[in-house]
């Protein structure tokens, strides 16, 4: 059979800014990484290994932004170099948070945490999400640019896409932040309610605050997960029906 000589374009390893259009996302990713380090240290105190691990993680993630999606391994199933560096970097940052958190005695007793500290915790969570998101978004839009220009001969304007991303992303971020604060505050509210209903039960809740937090997450997200599974299945069927109906309706020329 014919052997194919087309599309054998391997992405070469190139180090440097890939696309100037996405530089802002790269800088934001780096900034969020250092904010994560800052908030974590502010919450837990300084511990050399943990802080070093986080800083190395942030730097490795940033280095991932400066490389092309070069295939390090001869298998498409394994991540490309830039993705691999990002995953390793985020993993190291996460490891630093775990180390710093574990070394802090005050944090091991959440019953002592004030509402303000819960808000700071939620902020840390959101900044960590943004740290991941901006780094990933930068690579995603880099690949959109590559994809748009690889086989075509037209300059692709990514600015409207980026504007849309920042607009919609910020809107969603507000909701994510609100939901996170609500989830963490629930623990605080449950603690107060339990104390008011039954002091013995309330003390038990305070004693097991970490488990209450985990149970709160489970109570909120397990039903949402089940609902979404049902919703997706139902929506897929609905879409198929609509597609069939649209196909039947098609016929009127679009050009006028």
């Amino acid at each position, binding site marked *: 059979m014919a052997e194919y000589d087309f599309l054998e374009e391997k992405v070469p390893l190139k180090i440097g800014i890939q696309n100037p259009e996405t530089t802002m996302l790269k800088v934001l990713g780096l900034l969020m990484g250092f904010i994560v380090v800052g908030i974590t240290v502010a919450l*837990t105190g300084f511990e050399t290994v943990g802080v070093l691990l986080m800083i190395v993680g942030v730097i490795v993630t940033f280095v991932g932004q400066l490389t092309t999606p070069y295939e390090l391994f001869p298998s498409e199933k394994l991540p490309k170099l830039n993705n691999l560096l990002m995953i390793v970097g985020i993993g190291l940052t996460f490891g630093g*948070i775990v180390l710093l958190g574990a070394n802090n005695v005050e944090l091991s007793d959440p019953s002592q945490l004030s509402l303000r500290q819960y808000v700071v915790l939620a902020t840390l969570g959101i900044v960590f999400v943004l740290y991941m*998101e901006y780094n990933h978004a930068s690579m995603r839009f880099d690949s959109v640019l590559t994809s748009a220009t690889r086989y075509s001969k037209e300059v692709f304007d990514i600015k409207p*896409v980026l504007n849309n991303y920042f607009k919609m*992303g910020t809107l969603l971020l507000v909701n994510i932040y609100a939901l996170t604060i609500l989830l963490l505050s629930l623990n605080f509210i449950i603690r107060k309610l339990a104390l008011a209903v039954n002091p013995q039960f309330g003390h038990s809740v305070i004693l097991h605050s970490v488990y209450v937090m985990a149970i709160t997450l489970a109570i909120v997200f397990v039903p949402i997960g089940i609902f979404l599974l049902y919703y997706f299945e139902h929506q897929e069927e609905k879409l198929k029906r609509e597609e069939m109906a649209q196909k039947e309706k098609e016929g009127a020329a679009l050009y006028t």
Partner: protein
Amino acid sequence: MWTKKAVLVVSLAVLSILLGLSLRNPLLLALSAALLSYLTISVFANTTARLAAERKLSHEKIFEDGTAKAELLIVNRGGKTGFLEVRDKLPRQVQITEGTNYTYLNLNPKGGATRLRYTMKFPLKGLYQIGPITLRTQDPYNLFYRESEVPEVSEITVFPQVRDVKELYIKSKQPKIYPGEMKVKMPGPGTDFFAIRDYMPGDPFRDINWKAYASTGKLLVNERERLSVSDITIVFDSREVSGIGMDSDNANLYGARAAATLANFFLKRRDSVQLVVYSDKVRTVKKGSGQKQLFEILTALATAEPKGDLPLGGIAEVVLPYMPRHSPVIIISNLEEDDTLSKAVSTMKVLEFDVTIISPNSIEFEIMAKQKKGIKVDPVAYSILRLERDILIQELMGYGVRVVDWKPAVPLTQVLLEARTY
């Protein structure tokens, strides 16, 4: 559908919960709360595109290396599209020379539209399908996506290249009575000198060769070579083995170009041409002449893909009874993997067909493909294959058949000049 990123986020959230519980650390639980909120909110931000599309093409039939312009109109018939990726699916052999078939945009709800304009170059013959249009919608954070297709499909037929050939030495011994432009190696009406013979009563005076009369003292007349139309059959081998090599260099492609050039030349000469393509089945373009016949032959060659393994012997049995005796038969085949070949060719010779074989050399195509891909070529193995091929060619020539061994480096026009039958 979940993206890999979403799976990683879920894994990280679960890991955070487990570590948070084992280390009694609310920091990690806060992280997992943020990660799970991130996922949940994004699910609801994922949209579905309901688009309608229409494609206009500048040409539906072109020759190899030709270009066609496409204009794609996409109209949003649903709500917000969010992050929408649109790609007009193209066969991988097609090259875009101008514009783009890909875009990433956010279409306005109910009637928002966009146009993609691009020019495609088709370097190889074939029947190409443009489309369907693939769509992918994502939430802003790319955690979930939905893929769909708009079934808008167009077809472009790319004919094999036709080279301009001034002269070919393929002639028939069995002319038809109609005057044409083909010299048929027989005396008759024509312009070129053929032979001298004795004067016979009734011969026109202007045909008397006065110089010959002066030297011999006998009345002799010039005879001219007859110009006539002829029936020519082109047999094109499009079996799977004809695809050996690369997309851009293989026996199928080269053979189709040769067949198209020959057909064009003969039809211009007002001959009647018949085409037989054999692959997994036999496709015959019945003999005919004129532009319509050329169009039919080119279409048959364009759509002849390398597949199947029908032997020439079987084809000969089916087709020979319908072919005029003594007429030229041009077989275009790489002569690979067909045990019936010698028998079929000898049968044709027995039936007094004037057989010419143009054989694109698949061994050379294979070596070229391997060298291009950096695969080591075993010289001993290939010298044995070449020897086997040479023996087969010698055997075929032993039947009185003209065989042209076509190496990829030799241009088509030169190969056709070598294909003389006398």
